[in-house]
């Protein structure tokens, strides 16, 4: 099996899928000749031509809106938003159109598109190249939101997202692109949407998270193990739908929950996770449900001290998990 970075896994999956299904087109700003500002789509235009890998005008609503129309008329578009921070001009098309099309037409139409967007911070992107945007979309019935944490997962989840008959927002944490490597099978495989992955088994505390934070949680789990604290690291993989059964199973075992996300705290998706636990598992809890999140400031500062103060780290996770273990 090949070792790949997270970024390479996504590129290889796109290549494999473009080769597999002629209906797939990839487009967005700078994805063609330049291969994307992160090089994710490098080489794809050369291989599949300008009609299937398209440098689009600089207009996010048009990128998503045309993908909607194209998907209805027989294509399988995979539009890219250059940075997740720039998805807001397309919110109307995503929320009011893509996500509502099936329901409003009483199942007469569907919008099978996969919107890829790099997101997240810790890479010196400042306020406008670091944002986490998942909560906005995880609130939208009709949308699916996928956030992989490893090269292996990225491939299987991206392929499944392409198979999915509904609009999928596929979020790629920039901090994973080149820092994380792993084994990725060459053949196509699918990982189901809505199924979490227990990336590490423990018994004392449940860490629930997704994306880059999974990697930090795994690091934290190593340190915690040295202290004798064994944690479950539950990687949600997709936050809409999200895997309540897996959450409940882990909570039942540990009775202690730490939810982790980089997104702003108030109204972040952690609140939803906490709420379903408080609704259905209250009497299994041995400690308050805790959240470790990005702070409630508009977005991540650029200057290193500000960025550092905003970001979650393995150390912060260790600290919070330790408090819970001792609770």
């Amino acid at each position, binding site marked *: 099996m090949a070792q790949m970075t997270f970024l390479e896994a996504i590129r290889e999956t796109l290549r494999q899928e473009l080769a597999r299904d002629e209906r797939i087109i990839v487009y967005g700003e700078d994805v063609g000749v330049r291969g994307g500002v992160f090089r994710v789509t490098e080489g794809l235009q050369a291989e599949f031509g300008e009609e299937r890998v398209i440098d689009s005008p600089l207009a996010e609503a*048009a990128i998503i*809106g045309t993908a909607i129309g194209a998907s209805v008329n027989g294509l399988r578009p995979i539009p890219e938003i250059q940075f997740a921070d720039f998805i807001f001009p397309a919110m109307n098309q995503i929320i009011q159109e893509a996500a509502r099309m*099936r*329901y*409003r037409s009483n199942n007469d139409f569907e919008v099978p598109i996969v919107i890829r967007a790099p997101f997240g911070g810790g890479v010196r992107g400042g306020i406008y190249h670091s944002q986490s945007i998942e909560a906005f979309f995880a609130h939208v019935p009709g949308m699916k939101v996928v956030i992989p944490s490893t090269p292996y997962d990225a491939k299987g989840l991206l392929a499944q997202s392409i198979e999915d008959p509904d609009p999928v927002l596929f979020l790629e944490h920039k901090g994973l692109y080149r820092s994380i490597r792993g084994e990725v099978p060459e053949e196509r495989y699918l990982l189901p949407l809505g199924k979490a992955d227990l990336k590490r088994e423990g018994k004392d505390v449940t860490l629930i998270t997704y994306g880059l934070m999974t990697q930090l949680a795994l690091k934290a789990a190593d340190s915690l193990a040295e202290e004798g604290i064994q944690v479950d690291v539950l990687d949600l993989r997709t936050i809409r739908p999200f895997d309540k059964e897996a959450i409940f199973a882990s909570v039942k075992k540990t009775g202690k929950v730490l939810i982790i996300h980089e997104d702003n705290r108030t109204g972040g998706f952690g609140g939803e996770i906490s709420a379903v636990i408080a609704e259905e598992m209250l009497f299994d809890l041995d400690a308050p449900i805790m959240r470790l999140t990005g702070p409630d400031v508009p977005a991540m500062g650029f200057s290193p001290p500000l960025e550092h103060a905003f970001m979650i780290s393995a150390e912060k996770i260790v600290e919070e998990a330790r408090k819970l273990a001792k609770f």
Partner: protein
Amino acid sequence: MPDNGLTPELMKEMYYMMALSRHMDDRLWALNRQGRAPTVYSSNGHEAAQVGSAFALRRGEDWIVPYYRDMALVLAWGMTPREVMLHFFAKAEDPNSGGRQMMAHWGSHRLHILSTGAVVATQDVHAAGLALASKVLKDGRVSVAYFGEGSTSQGEFHEALNFAAVHKLPVVFFNENNGYAISVPQRKQMVVQDISARADAYGMPGVSVDGNDPIKVYEVTRAAAERARRGEGPTLIEAKTYRFVPHSSDDDDRAYRSREEVQEHKKYDPLLMFESRLLADKILTEEEKADMAKKIKAVIDDATSYADKAPLPDADTLGLYVYGDDSK
């Protein structure tokens, strides 16, 4: 007159569709005023623009992306009066939305009418997207977006036209300019007089046409569709027309336009003008006209009573079709 492909039969069919729509519209208002349905959006006054353009396309094969004003259009495109009434009464059988959407939110996969929401100008981008697929798949289809002049103030109008022009997509942007966006007159909406003047900004042809003349509308739409099919890219058409009734049944247009103004425009009622012309040209006889009127009344009566009796959607269906896998 050069041959435009319009036979007398087709012109009569056009007239029939215009008259059908006008009478349907009158019936909808009556039903609304009787409290039998909460909201009407009318195509009253727009019939020539809508029907003329529909006849210039491959109905059912090309794609249209209408807006709420387009009842005459969808009737001409193949939606039946029963289907329209089912939609109006929000019944389970409504093919547009199963009673989920307010009246005039059209959509039918079978007929190639893309499902529409209420947010204006989104349809412009969707039409470009449909056309992008046609270009890649070489399916020979043309897509047409319909929209009011007010909606051209939206960013998505601009993005759609620009995208379509850059990619030379087989799409037509069809504007129904009735001079008002609810209460806002065109001069508060834009400085230009002609929507077609906006085409230059995208390097595409823009053409204004008398939207009260179905033949002229037919001709310009046909030319635009042919151009699109030849791979020469999009066209922006402006059909100048007028809305004879308030914006919707919730509106009161006396607040923003005088009765005199409305009366003045009624002189150019597209239905009456077309009727006179067909009669004068002996394409339509008085007898045929009377037959059609009878047929229309019967069809509308049938549609009304059918839809009236049809069941409402079951409350249990509320959660269905959020996702494709729901149906499995």
